[in-house]
């Protein structure tokens, strides 16, 4: 059922560094691409989302880059902080219906 492939599985970054997580999708009918952040014992929380009509969206330290022709999108976390340590999921959906999630990336930001 997985139609979204996410990499890397885990990522270790120094405080102040840039964290980059990549995703690739298969279904060209997808029209909504969110990123979710999940802390242990909590449900996923929406971080930032993009539609395919734009190539980049920035909210604070978080940026999504979107490449429609390559069917890829990525999350960049600038100035990474220890509080950003969590599992990040990319996802994709069609008409905001069922959300197809990637397998997740466990990010650790070392102080």
């Amino acid at each position, binding site marked *: *059922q997985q139609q979204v492939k996410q990499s890397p599985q885990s990522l270790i970054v120094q405080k102040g560094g840039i964290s980059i997580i990549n995703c690739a999708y298969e279904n060209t009918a997808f029209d909504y691409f969110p990123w979710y952040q999940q802390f242990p*014992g909590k449900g996923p929380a*929406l971080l930032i989302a993009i539609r395919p009509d734009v190539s980049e969206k920035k909210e604070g330290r978080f940026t999504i880059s979107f490449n429609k022709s390559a069917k890829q999108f990525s999350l960049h976390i600038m100035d990474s902080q220890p509080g950003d340590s969590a599992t990040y999921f990319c996802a994709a959906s069609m008409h*905001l219906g069922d959300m197809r999630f990637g397998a*997740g990336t466990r990010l650790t930001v070392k102080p």
Partner: protein
Amino acid sequence: DAGVTQSPTHLIKTRGQQVTLRCSPKSGHDTVSWYQQALGQGPQFIFQYYEEEERQRGNFPDRFSGHQFPNYSSELNVNALLLGDSALYLCASSLRIGGRNTGELFFGEGSRLTVL
């Protein structure tokens, strides 16, 4: 403003038993979706309820069924439990306008089911 609430938070069942999980959506939301999250994996869509009807369904067997009540709360039922059903079950709520999904999913903290 209460977010999405789920109960129970943890439960243990044995193979062959049945389980019911409950969800109250975020205030103002009318659509409830259920997801299964196996350990170390991303959530997988089970189904979505709107106006007390199942509107979309993922690739899950008929052992998984649900219900939505007039107050928008929802239940997920799983019959004939298998060991592989052990997972975190997440409820997410959202809002439809004019029957169309409008966006952000708000997730609850989940119900952790262990099948022995």
